[in-house]
């Protein structure tokens, strides 16, 4: 008989009888392995905290998404949204699966090029494209998604100086019946700005109008909005063909598909409410297929979904620093990863699990990060098992945005490993050290010395 782990004693009211509206008291199943590799060993080898990405989950999710669309529509491409996670190893997994690149800045653009993505397979989105960025994109035959008239004028201007013909699309925003309306990006559909922009492009002899782009919002829980958006883009495509005889090469429906994380304040967990890829695919493709676009002119359908592709593949694992009791009597557990690493904690009620086996007992707990800042809360209150200092935890579904929006704040950013298809870990981003941060700093001569 092995010795049982010590758990601190608690006092809890017995909750017998029928479940209340809060449901049965539920037990958080421990998660000890990722892709068959013990989390304990990973922390032992690569330190704590640690980001773990599962290559097989990425590939599986990609294939699932691709299958959902390609089994409904004849011509489908995915473009990997760099801002969601631009760790090069992650990008390359997507590129190996056949995804193009979708970037929103000169920096991301260069990153995609450095990863070896051919210029013509890069979609360049975003409101901020410098003149140099545009020149580069035009030279590389990249697909430029125009965000505003000033950008259009600049491209027209550049097209006169450059030999290459800019390949452009416009980003269209529209009312899809959701709130808030995303009208800050692109040209509006309802007020005719989008149609106006398209006509200006068609009137210009130096520009190649390749497609239409929209991105109706983020974390969309309703497929209906996509149905409306696809219908409006199809209308524009039909009008273009009718008026200018121009056949579009693609329609880019952007991304924004919800992942299975639970939004803060949501009543039901995300695993139950988030539409599947099939739901999104059915909504989008059925509109395009039944639109008046001629069957042999059906444009390529491009999707830039980021979050739903990668969220499930990311795990943040770490160690409990301490437990304490708050003034109101609630428990608080301090973890070694906070909002500095887990930016998404501001939006989601993350699924935090123990790594080691625990008893059925849980306690209303606040999970804090290690920062010396009041905002550093991972979960405000969660029925959490009784972990003690040194126990390990794992936070699920952290693949999206955290590796791009994390902060080097107070602490340094940790190692990131990727588990290959056999579960073997590969270090894909080294932990930062003092030198990493200091190397970028320059000390003026007169500040070099001080006496204390």
């Amino acid at each position, binding site marked *: 008989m092995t010795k049982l782990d010590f758990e601190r004693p608690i006092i809890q009211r017995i909750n017998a009888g029928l479940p209340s509206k809060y449901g049965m008291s539920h037990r958080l199943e421990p998660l000890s392995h990722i892709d068959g590799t013990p989390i304990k060993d990973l922390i032992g080898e690569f330190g704590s905290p640690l980001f773990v990405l599962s290559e097989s989950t990425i*590939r*599986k999710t990609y*294939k*699932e998404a691709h*299958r959902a669309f*390609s*089994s*409904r*529509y*004849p*011509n489908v491409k995915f473009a990997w949204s760099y801002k969601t996670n631009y760790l090069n190893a992650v990008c390359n997994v997507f590129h190996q699966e056949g995804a*193009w690149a979708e970037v929103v800045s000169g920096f991301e653009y260069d990153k995609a090029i450095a990863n070896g993505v*051919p*210029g*013509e*397979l890069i979609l360049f989105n975003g409101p901020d494209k410098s003149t140099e960025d545009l020149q580069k994109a035009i030279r590389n*035959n990249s*697909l430029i998604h125009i965000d505003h008239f000033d950008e259009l004028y600049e491209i027209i201007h550049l097209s006169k100086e450059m030999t290459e*013909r800019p*390949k452009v699309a416009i980003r269209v925003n529209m009312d899809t019946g959701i709130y808030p309306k995303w009208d800050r990006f692109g040209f509006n559909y309802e007020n005719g700005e989008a149609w106006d922009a398209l006509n200006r492009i068609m009137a210009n002899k130096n520009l190649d109008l*390749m497609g239409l782009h929209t991105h109706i919002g983020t974390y969309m829980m309703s497929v209906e909005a996509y149905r409306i958006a696809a219908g409006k883009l199809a209308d524009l495509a039909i009008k273009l063909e009718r008026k200018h005889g121009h056949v579009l*090469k*693609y329609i880019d429906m952007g991304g924004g598909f919800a992942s299975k994380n639970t939004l803060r304040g949501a009543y039901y967990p995300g695993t139950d409410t988030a539409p599947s890829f099939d739901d999104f695919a*059915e909504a989008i*493709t059925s509109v395009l*297929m*039944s639109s008046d676009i001629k*069957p042999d002119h059906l444009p390529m359908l491009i999707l830039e979904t980021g979050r739903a592709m990668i969220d499930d593949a990311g795990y943040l694992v770490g160690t409990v620093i301490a437990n304490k009791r708050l003034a109101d009597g609630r428990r608080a557990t301090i973890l070694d990863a906070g909002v500095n690493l887990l930016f998404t904690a501001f939006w989601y009620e993350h699924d935090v699990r123990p790594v080691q086996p625990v008893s059925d007992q849980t306690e209303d707990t606040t999970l804090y990060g290690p920062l010396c800042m009041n905002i550093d809360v991972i979960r405000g209150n969660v029925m959490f098992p009784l972990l003690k200092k040194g126990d390990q935890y794992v936070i699920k579904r952290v693949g999206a945005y955290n590796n791009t929006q994390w902060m080097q704040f107070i602490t340094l950013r940790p190692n990131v490993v990727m588990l290959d298809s056999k579960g073997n870990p590969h270090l894909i981003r080294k932990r930062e050290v003092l030198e990493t941060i200091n190397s970028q700093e320059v000390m003026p001569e007169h500040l070099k010395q001080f006496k204390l």
Partner: protein
Amino acid sequence: MKKFEWLGQSLFNSYAQVFFSNNKWFGIILLGITFVDVYVGFFGLTAVLAALLTAYFIGLYEPNIRQGYYGFNALLVGVGLGIYFEPGLLLFVLVLIAGILTVFIAVTMEGVLGKYGLPYLSIPFILVFWMVRLATREFGELGLSERGVYVLNDLYLLGGRSLVDMYEWWNQLPMPLSFKAYFLSLGAIFFQSNVFAGVLAALGILIYSRIAFTLSLWGFYLAYVFYLLLGIPFSEVSFSYIGFNYILTAIALGGYFIIPSRSSYLGLIAIIPVVTILGIALQQVFSLIYLPIHSFPFNLATLTFLYALKFRVDNRIGLSTIFWQQNSPEKNLYSFSNFHKRFGEDSPVPIYLPFFGEWTVTQGHNGAYTHKDAWRYAWDFEIKDEQNKTFKDEGDFPTDYYCFDKNILAPADGTVEAVVNDIPDNPIGANNLEKNWGNTIIIKHADFLYSKLSHLKQGSILPKPGDKVKKGEVIGKCGNSGNSPYPHLHFQIQATPYIGSKTIDFRITDVWMRVTGEEKLMSAANPPMDAVVSTLMPENDLKKAFSFVVGNRLLFETQEGKRHEWEVKRDYSLNKYLECQQTGSKAYFKLDEAMLHFTHFEGDRKSLLYAFYLSAFKVSFGFTNGLKLKDRFPVHMVFNINTIFLQDFIAPFYQYLKGEFTLTYPEKNKGFSTKPLSLKGQVLKKSWGKTLAVSEFEFVLDGGGLRTFGFKNNKNQILATCIYDS
């Protein structure tokens, strides 16, 4: 004189056609043979010219005249009359009339027999010759020739002592009796009963075709042995005058009208004795009215046999009749075996996969579950994930299955014949055996060609009976109705429009397939169990570069500044080809929405068009990165006569020469950019598996079509730029 430019070719072909050939040199040799007896030669020539000019002036189809189709019967009539009667003006007039008459009889026979897809062989000759022979019995003025009897006298008069000596030398040549009989039989076709003519004719056949030559020996000796077996006294003369029947039958049925093969050679073992008996029997009948039977047994046997073969269900099994006569057993054989390999299983009406994306065959032809007996030629398709699962979660509900509710497309253009749309979808695991096929749509694509898609989702079928559907149009959704324990699509081709009709074996067109880890692209496929299949989206750039439209012109300029202009044309049988304006060479091709195949080349093999034919032998307009296409050339299209001469002899049994084609697509996708796309490939010539020569080629193309075409072999290197393509 240019007006009569056709005459030369027609003339030589009229001689060569006696042995089914259109080989000019063979024709010239045979022309020479007829002149062994000058009068015979002269009257033969007279009859041919009379026939050809008649055919020309009454306006028959010129290519047929050029092929000598209207000349060879007249030739036989001419030489026949020339040998029987004393030369003179009367005979000359008679030959002229007979020659003209032969054309009309030939055209009539062509009309009558052509309806049954049969050749008229030498029937016009026999009819005219008999007619003239019967009629001339009343012509007192026409003297019977005695030249056949007193050969030596005639020879002496013509060429003096030396000619007689040579004649004697040939006839005295020490050789087995059967050899002599063989040569005499060959000569006798032209009414020349001497060894010399026979040897020349044999030589001519050898030059014309190695297969025809071996067949002539095979046919002759089969008859020879049969005569010995029957114990019929073997008289050289009587034998020689009907001996050619066996030779002609052997060539016709062993390799000319039937693709030469082991079975055609074996078939002759049965056919030749039939001809022998037929010959003896006919002789009995015709001797009553004092008429020679000539080649009548050959005609009768060949026509009967060919006609009977027409009634077979499948022409692909042994003794395949030719569908495109190239006037050479070798060419017919090489083209056929290659065509058979490349397109033998092609469907006359292309039927495509009825869905988007990658699906897996979960039950193929002769499947383990339900594809049995009358329904054995059917496929079940489902979608599988990378774990080989067909569903997500637990798979307890139809909606968990990847294929459920997916678009089902019309596999080809057609008219909706029947629709069942109201059968509820089963819960997982349950079967509705009462309504076996579930929701089903049957589409008619052509006469006796229907496709049936079953187990669809209740209420999902969009068209109504009588509606026209276009290929690729969404017609319904995959469901789980009928005898379907879990969602799948049942797809079958049938010849009748009923639900429950029996299936027919039919191939699906342009299928990309991954089976046992190997990717391939097939122009016609019967995907086996567990194959992952999909249809490749054609790339516009490739389509623009290789989709030749009749009337288009392509202009190339080589690095030396030489220009080559090709025009896309179409012949009477609607075969499309590229024709080189400079050399007149033609490269025939076959084109569908997703692929280009070159099928045949004729003309100058030094031309750029020939290199192009080799390089664009098979091009798919859709591709996956790094896709490799492979194909085989017809042997005679890549090897020259020196290399192929020996192969010809054994070609019906084994082909050791191989021409292999590979084409490799780029590793990287180029998106919508106008960047050029480069396709590279090789043409390998192999003998007994050893590579004799390698040619390499490269196409560079972009949105504007073909840009450059490079071709390199051990002799030279061409880089041609496409100047325009319109």
